[in-house]
């Protein structure tokens, strides 16, 4: 299996040759592809072989090659998405793409941990997006072949042979800081109230008064997994804070510790040779923007730059990846 950027004609030929592909690219390019065994999401930002890049002229391609037993594409509505883990192969993995800002994006973010057989098989993926210059003018899409969706998830269910296993991992350079402990009274993509060190406060006012850098995410420690929730906006007039992923009541969050240099932190965290063993990875648009990753490489790890990452559930400001290993 391999991943790389290709021009439109090459991708068209791959599809016509019957290759099974997971694609990321600008909508205008994806609309010119023939029908076939492929899924895609719209995005013009990438971590390519040359480094972070913005392009509407190439498509990022992940090929499913001879290592797999079988693979099937499927689209899901809000009504059918809860069965995604039931549809997963017994030994294999599933790749999901969700359109940003859609109802199914929000539904997945809030409800996926409650899906039947949650995390019983590897589910990795990303949230499609658009150029930041097109916000408000275009909508993120997903594709299952030539079928285009604004409110459906698309999935490749991939079955592996018995001697192979898939494993999902995270690279999150953010640690919980040693500041206040923050809880929320309700689940949601926005919050007015928070409980800070046991005291109920208006969260927007708290952020403003404490001069919190909202480029740093909220970090939850989930049995040792650091799960980020990124700030979208602090509206001090409406006294409301919006997030790119939901906060959940009952979870204790802390603001992340500042990161001096994303690239050096990243490269010190990730083995230099990891890129060769990765089947699929994606990284967050916020890391791309805040760490100014355009033109910079991350240990030869490539993939789409996304509006959200999926490792069983929705994540923010995280690199997720999937490796396929021999079963010991």
């Amino acid at each position, binding site marked *: 299996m391999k991943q790389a950027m290709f021009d439109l004609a090459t991708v068209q030929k791959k599809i016509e040759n019957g290759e099974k592909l997971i694609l990321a690219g600008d909508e205008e390019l994806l609309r010119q592809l023939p029908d076939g065994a492929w899924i895609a999401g719209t995005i013009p930002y990438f971590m390519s072989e040359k480094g972070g890049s913005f392009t509407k002229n190439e498509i990022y391609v992940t090929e499913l090659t001879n290592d797999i037993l079988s693979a099937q594409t499927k689209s899901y509505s809000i009504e059918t998405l809860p069965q995604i883990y039931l549809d997963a192969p017994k030994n294999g993995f599933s790749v999901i793409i969700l359109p940003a800002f859609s109802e199914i994006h929000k539904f997945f973010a809030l409800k996926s*941990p*409650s899906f039947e057989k*949650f*995390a*019983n098989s*590897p589910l990795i993926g990303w949230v499609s997006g658009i150029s930041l210059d097109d916000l408000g003018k275009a909508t993120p899409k997903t594709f299952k072949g030539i079928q285009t969706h604004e409110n459906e998830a698309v999935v490749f269910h991939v079955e592996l042979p018995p001697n192979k*296993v898939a*494993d*999902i*991992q*995270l690279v999150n350079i953010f640690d919980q800081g040693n500041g206040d402990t923050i809880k929320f009274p309700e689940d949601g993509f926005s919050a007015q109230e928070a409980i800070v060190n046991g005291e109920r406060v208006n969260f927007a006012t708290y952020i403003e008064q404490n001069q919190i850098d909202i480029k740093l995410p909220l970090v939850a420690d*989930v*049995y*040792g*997994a650091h*799960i980020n929730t990124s700030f979208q906006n602090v509206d001090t007039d409406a006294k409301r804070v919006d997030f790119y992923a939901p906060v*959940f*009541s*009952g*979870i204790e969050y802390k603001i992340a510790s500042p990161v001096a240099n994303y690239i050096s932190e990243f490269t010190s965290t990730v083995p230099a040779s990891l890129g060769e063993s990765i089947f699929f990875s994606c990284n967050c648009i916020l890391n791309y923007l805040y760490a100014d990753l355009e033109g910079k490489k991350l240990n030869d790890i490539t993939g789409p730059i996304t509006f959200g990452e999926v*490792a*069983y*559930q929705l994540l923010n400001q995280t690199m997720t990846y999937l490796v396929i290993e021999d*079963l*010991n």
Partner: protein
Amino acid sequence: MRIPGINDPNWKNIIQNKASYSLESLATKVILGRMNLTCQNNSSPEVMQNCISELRSFFESNAHLQKVQNDIKTIFGEGVL
């Protein structure tokens, strides 16, 4: 690998996050994270039993994975082998 029965007290301990566990599998971590929240929101014995059954089922179907094996040993001790 023999997965302990549902009456083993370690099931409840891990779901309630009563000690510091160093787990390896991301799937184990996120499943436990969701179960911990579920049991915080509803402390009935039935909810706990459902979580234990679900977690046991996850371990049974993924016990061939090295990281999951290591998590089982972390939770129940080396004697589980």
